[in-house]
């Protein structure tokens, strides 16, 4: 069998295979991430709860008075 380093084409193919193998090894040896907390149906974890409150606060923030970027004047949110 011919040495693959004898020809540039075979060397490039071997390089691509080596790249894939090293990337696979890097992914396989990645530090384990902490799994998401599992909770019983109906129950709410503290993380979920805080996430929910953050989500709920978003519309309130949108509705708060803001400053007009051009004039600098305080713009009050429209009331229904």
């Amino acid at each position: 069998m011919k040495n693959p380093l004898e020809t540039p084409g075979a060397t490039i193919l071997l390089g691509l295979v080596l790249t894939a193998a090293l990337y696979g090894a890097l992914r396989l040896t990645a530090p384990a991430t902490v799994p998401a907390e599992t909770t019983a149906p109906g129950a709410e974890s503290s993380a979920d709860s805080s996430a929910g409150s953050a989500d709920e606060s978003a519309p309130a923030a949108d509705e708060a008075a803001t400053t007009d970027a051009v004039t600098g004047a305080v713009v009050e949110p429209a009331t229904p």
Partner: protein
Amino acid sequence: MDGQLFGEYLLRWLHFLFGFTWIGLLYYFNLVQIPSLKNISAEAKAEVFKEGGIARTALFYFRWAAIGTVLVGLALLAHKGMLVQALTLSGPTNIRGLGIGCWLGIIMMLNVWLIIWPKQQTVLGIVPATAEEKAAAGRTAMLASRTNFLLSIPMLFFMEAFSHGLN
């Protein structure tokens, strides 16, 4: 722009200048010069290898660009405070990936200075040798250069992938 950021840009720019010169010449050797030398006459080959000829000039920039690339690359990592994590392949995936690229680059630079250049000195006649010794040195230098060509493919992937969006 603060001094820290300016230093990072300067080192990155120098790293690219040295790196493109090194890898560009590596690809020239492997894709152009080595295949072409098989098809030229002994007289033409002597012209390529003579003092001031194409091969010696290319090898000069090739070996000094190699050491410049690695030294500036290590300085860049130290400047960013990532040198130890990269070289010990520890920390987050992007730094470990960069570390793989670093080690491949370091191995390639050592290959240039410890194998390719000494063997090329024999091939070029800088070191006195018989025709058989020159032929053997030429084959070893070619295989070492092809090994660097092979390693450059994952090296470039790991150097750039994680700073351009891959997680």
